[in-house]
């Protein structure tokens, strides 16, 4: 119940609008009146973000890499180029670097300066990725950060943090879970979580609740 009370309802009664909502509406009105943007084009942008991008794209890429060694080699060589050959994944921009987790090395991605993130592969970043606790601690105490996610790594495994300080974007290729021999790409893709491609989690294991 308390959740319902706390949740903000999008009322069209102006008295219910926050100051920020009013300011955002005013700005859109000005941009529209001046002929800079078409509101329907803004709607279309939002709809595209809501429907076209998301971690399902990255999951397909990971599952393909798990089942196709030649694709995996190409992916680690040049992520953008390799993904460009997959028709079913939305187009990806330049400079995507795919980094592979191994038993010796765990990779984790951050943007300490803002919020750089591989949108086409993972969708829009979650709030925690853009917020101060993650951005400040990921480069100094990544094991502490992982503990916040309930993730523990072996004590002596190398942990490599990639700070996305330029227009390169990083996608983690997690290790394929044991017990998935013979699985199809589609089945494997179901195991790939968003966080496993950021490096703050692992893929689901077969049989575990999703």
């Amino acid at each position, binding site marked *: 119940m308390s959740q319902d009370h706390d949740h903000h309802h999008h009322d069209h009664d102006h008295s219910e609008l926050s100051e920020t909502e009013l300011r955002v509406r005013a700005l859109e009105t000005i941009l529209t009146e001046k002929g*800079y943007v078409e509101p329907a084009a803004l709607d279309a942008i939002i709809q595209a973000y809501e429907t076209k991008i998301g971690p399902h794209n990255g999951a397909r890429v990971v599952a393909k890499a798990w089942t196709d060694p030649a694709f995996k080699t190409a992916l680690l060589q040049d992520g953008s180029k390799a993904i460009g050959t997959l028709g079913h994944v939305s187009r990806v921009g330049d400079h995507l670097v795919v980094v592979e987790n191994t038993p010796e090395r765990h990779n984790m991605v951050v943007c300490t300066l803002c919020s750089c993130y591989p949108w086409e592969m993972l969708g829009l970043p979650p709030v925690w990725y853009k917020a101060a606790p993650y*951005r400040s601690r990921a480069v100094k*105490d990544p094991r502490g950060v992982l503990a916040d996610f309930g993730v523990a790594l072996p004590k002596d495994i190398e942990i490599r943090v990639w700070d996305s300080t330029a227009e390169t974007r990083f996608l983690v290729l997690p290790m394929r879970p044991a017990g998935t021999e013979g699985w199809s790409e589609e089945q494997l893709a179901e195991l790939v979580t968003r966080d496993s491609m950021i490096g703050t989690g692992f893929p689901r294991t077969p049989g575990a609740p999703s």
Partner: protein
Amino acid sequence: MNGVHDMGGMDGFGKVEPEPNEPMFHEEWESRVLAMVRAMGAAGAFNIDTSRFYRETLPPHVYLSSSYYKKWFLGLEEMLIDKGYLTREEVAAGHAMQPAKALKHGKFDRANVERIMVRGKFGRPAPAPAKFKIGDRVRARNIHPATHTRLPRYVRGHVGVVELNHGCHVFPDTAAMELGENPQWLYTVVFEGRDLWGEDGDPTLKVSIDAFEPYLEPA
């Protein structure tokens, strides 16, 4: 600039708090802000580096206490005023009062939506050969530009190793100030955790940044 946005290594911000089943937007206005930023950028009102710089120049207390899309909104409004696309009077009135300023790529309409769903291209032809090669030891220069830079404070003065060469890219430091693309070689440089954080640092940690050539010197 040495702003609060440059957060790598700061203490005291508390635990990371993932939100289960997080919605794409928490408020409808957030989606409008995202769309306006993408549309006005694509129309040519500003480049991505300039938009980052305007968020970084928000007063520190505002930056730290504003939600992500609130920062985007505040940065957008200030940037459009500074660049002459709207006036403070218009913002106060909530309506257009002045003639529009021409946009480099024209009005953003529905026909433009498709092209912005793929990231822009930042690679450029090389104006000069690369100064560093993979495996070279380099020091992140001890520089403190007061304007936009992508060299985080926590690596300045430290020695790392060049691991990847990404070719020449638009240089954010000049692009943000509208001083040109000034393409520079871009490298992934990897640092030992203990070099950055001292004896108490995690001995299993390595951290890399992507560094433009002017950020580096031979070590």
